[in-house]
């Protein structure tokens, strides 16, 4: 890249995104070379092509794409950048796959601070490096002020899954065990605490993390005993279990007392009147496993830092209604609902 062609370097301290940064002209090239290249630094990107070429690995390819919008952009334990990397790595990993490469595209709002953009790009680069999954191609567009909220990021990931492993949401069977890889609700509560910082303080940080290492250990331990994995992001554990129940045509029976929830999350949910089961996670997974593999699976998970607090939370049951039911600490059962949208008050 010929930097000498630019009039002057970007002001990464006080500068702001303007419409020219998405024009396809010099300004855009400068933004890419001064913000994204240094942050993502890898051999594919440095060749400056509109695409990246790589050798197809042996096995079945897995691909996933996701768009990231979050407010605030920076939150305890992460930011939109690290989230965009972890989230897509996790989506690919949930197939039991090894993620290989990522792409990223950015929609920037005119006037967005370059310093924030750099911080986000650096965070993405670091997350990708730590995960060993490089961002090998990308794109940037700028929209007029008011037509976006700072920055939106889309990432796409490809990976490869070993032969014979075919995890799918329609594979849960009665008596299968249901596991969660750790404490639930941390991400959603960390975000909310930031969003309503006057309302309550919490030392909680987002659980945002790339789970492919944990997944590799799980596949090694339980292999073909694994039925399906999902990361309970938006909609939380409640949404994932309901989706699986519908797709597999079964019910779930969850033990309330078995759910790993940090006291801070319980307290915040109590204050806000939220159900921790409906709160988002960004570094947790739900796994459904054949009963005979449950023990070896949980042991393997406990041996990994991201699965240290893994727990069996319930089991799959036959149920024509495809209900997700929870045995509460009071003894009764209640339905874990699949909400249409936000948690709306219901008590009449």
């Amino acid at each position, binding site marked *: 890249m010929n930097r000498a062609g630019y009039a002057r370097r970007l002001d990464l301290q006080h500068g702001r995104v303007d419409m020219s940064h998405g024009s396809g002209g010099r300004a855009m090239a400068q933004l890419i070379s001064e913000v994204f290249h240094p942050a993502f630094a890898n051999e594919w990107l440095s060749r400056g092509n509109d695409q990246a070429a790589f050798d197809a690995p042996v096995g079945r390819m897995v691909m996933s794409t996701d768009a990231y919008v979050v407010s605030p952009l920076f939150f305890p334990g992460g930011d939109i950048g690290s989230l965009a990397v972890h989230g897509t790595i996790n989506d690919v990993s949930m197939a039991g796959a090894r993620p290989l490469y990522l792409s990223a595209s950015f929609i920037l709002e005119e006037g967005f601070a370059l310093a924030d953009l750099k911080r986000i790009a650096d965070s993405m680069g670091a997350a990708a490096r730590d995960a060993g999954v490089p961002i090998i191609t990308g794109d940037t567009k700028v929209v007029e002020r008011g037509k976006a909220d700072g920055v939106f990021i889309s990432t796409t990931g490809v990976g490869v899954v070993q032969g014979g492993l075919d995890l799918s949401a329609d594979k849960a069977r009665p008596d299968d065990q249901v596991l969660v890889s750790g404490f639930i609700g941390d991400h959603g509560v960390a975000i909310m605490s930031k969003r309503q910082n*006057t309302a309550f303080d919490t030392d909680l940080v987002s659980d945002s993390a790339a789970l492919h290492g944990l997944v590799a250990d799980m596949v090694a331990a339980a292999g073909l005993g694994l039925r399906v994995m999902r990361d309970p992001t938006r909609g939380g554990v409640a949404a994932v279990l309901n989706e699986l129940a519908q797709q597999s045509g079964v019910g779930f029976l969850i033990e309330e007392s078995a759910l790993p929830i940090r006291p801070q999350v319980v307290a915040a949910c109590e*204050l*806000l009147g939220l159900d921790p089961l409906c709160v988002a996670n960004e570094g947790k997974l739900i796994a459904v496993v054949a009963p005979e593999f449950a023990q070896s699976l949980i042991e393997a998970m406990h041996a990994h830092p991201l699965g240290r607090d893994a727990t069996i939370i319930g089991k799959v049951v036959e149920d024509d209604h495809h209900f997700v039911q929870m045995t509460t600490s009071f003894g009764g059962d209640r339905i874990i609902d699949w909400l249409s949208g936000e948690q709306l*008050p*219901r*008590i009449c």
Partner: protein
Amino acid sequence: MAAALSIAAEALSERRRLRVRGAVQGVGFRPFVHRLALRYELSGFVLNDSDGVLIEVEGVRLDAFIGALEQEPPPLARIDSLEIATVPSTWRGGFEIRESIGGRTQTRIVPDAGVCSVCLEDLFDPSSRFHLYPLVTCTDCGPRFTIVRALPYDRARTAMATFPPCEACACDYADTTGRRFHAETIACPACGPSLSHPIETIAEALAKGRIVALKGIGGFHLMCDARNETAVAELRRRKRRDAKPFAVMVANPASVDQIAVPSAAEHALMALSARPVVLLRRREGLAPSVAPRLDRLGVMLPYAPVHHLVFHAMARGSVEPLSHSAAQPTVLVATSANLGGEPLIIDDEDARRQLAGVADLTVTHDRQIVVRTDDSVMAVIAGAPAYLRRARGFVPEPIELKGDGPPALGAGGLLKATVTVVRGREAFVSQHIGDLRNAATISFYEETARRLLETLDVRPEAIGCDLHPDFPSTRFAARLAQGHGARLVQVQHHVAHIAAVAAEHRLTGPVLGVALDGHGLGADGGAWGGELVQLDGADWVRLGHLAPLPLPGGDRAAREPWRMGVAALTALGRADEAARWFADIPLAVDVAHLCLTPAGVSTTTSMGRLFDAAAALLGVCPYQSYEAQAAMELQALVRTPRVLPDGYRLAAGVLDFRPLLATLPELRSDPVLGAELFHGVVVQGLTAWIAEAASRRHLKQVALGGGCLMNAVLAEGLSAALRDRGLEPWLPRAAPANDGGLSLGQAALARIHAGHAVAS
């Protein structure tokens, strides 16, 4: 001479075919017709079919027969229509009761009835075949709705199918002169179902303070001695039921006065053959845990013969011989046997398994309960009976609507759900189902809806449901609408409450509607509950609402009135007092902060939450363990409602009670005065609000709906004040004011929508 007369009579003889519709099956109607035919020397036949009862009679005294048919039907029968046609004479002698004919049903099942006085005499008559038989019935009484599997009503289609009558019962069944002539439920100790334990065992257990599960008509009761605090407290512990009041049963009307102060109207309600639980002003004397901190007590009279036998056995020690009319000291807690919000238990095996840790003794009988039906609960409110829960003894009696219309279904809400099916001009509101929060209740709900459609043989053209997307009833309605190709009509919660009242009173034209309720999703996505609307057919417009208060923690605020107390303080600009008035609640300060954060909380215009706020500010009930506990405890303190000069503000349809709320914290030392001021000013403000809208809109009829109208002080005060202003207030009478009445309003509005669809 005789022969000549006979020929003359035959010459005058005509044959008529009579079609009788209404509640005419399973009520001794055919035997009654048979008796009349004998009395008036007519020949012919009578039979049950899917349209009701079909009669053909031939003879001279036809007019007398028809007159008697209309004037002296059996006690449980209700004739909706009688069609008479002349048919050719068959000249055949004798009168017979013919086999039933099935088919598309236009008839209906009748409600269950408490044991009648004549069966009661049999029960205690040592010379009777039915002496001490705990399942004695006749054509005038006993289970109906709860044992019927299908129509037409015949033993073979009831839970009695498995008990072929013995010779004596078969004789009674065939005896045209007796009360058990064609009594489908007839049974005696020789042939009928029997109780699993001797009555003495039950009485002994109860006397010793044990908890007994007893199978009744529509489900199991859990019973214990209501004068024994240890027993009642133990029942609460085992049932995990904190404070929600228990109903009690006493031996007979004379015994009621020992524990309560019933009016004549309340006595009359208790004596209905439905035997509802009736809320009465209580006296002292029962265990404190029966109905903690409430001034009213739910009391019912025995309705199954086994109840009478239990009281009889328990009294034997002190009253000898037992008199049915003398007051008995025994008072029994009689609460629905269910666990953790699950449906009432009806199955013997479920009872033994699920109640293992709750009941010391589980008493069953082998007559199966086919349809689960809780006890009905009623109260006299503003001078007339009102349902708090409509079930046994009243269901499936229809509510008559104004005019005919396309068939429709109302799916109800989330709590205290019911389903309503409208066929023709009749609205059939299902029995109380419960809160749709667990799989068992949702299954019961769906089964009830399907059964109702099936027994009424209706294909709904329109299905009404709530606006809330996450009610299981809303989802069920959407599926059902899809299945039937019916129109789905989502009805705003409070509009449905008001429409229910308008429907049952057959109000026409525009009415002013007032919903005083806990919570319902508003058309704007808000949390509504204190709403003033104008309703005209299916069209409505929101004219006003209560001033919004923060709703910190959503549903959590509904369970924890202290949150509404804090919300009220912040709305008064007194957030800094949260710690002072709610010193023992560590979260109070955080909740106050939350209320001040625009992104932190939504707001509500709910009247129920206003009651919660008032109760909390007065220190009455910071946490509630059952719905409306705070409001009920607040109401219980009121003797005479009082008013304040400037207790409310009214501007542009928004009714603001903040001035009233502002006075309450300082009244903690005198919560009675606080409660009286609250009720008085609320009535005062609501009256001004409603009257202002009524005069602006030139309306006179005011339909009052929503759960808060179960508060008798509010309902009575408000309707009296509105009448004083020259308005016509209408209260819910045929269905409960709370969400139990929602399905009726939804069905009524859905029907109007479907009618429009047909017209356009």
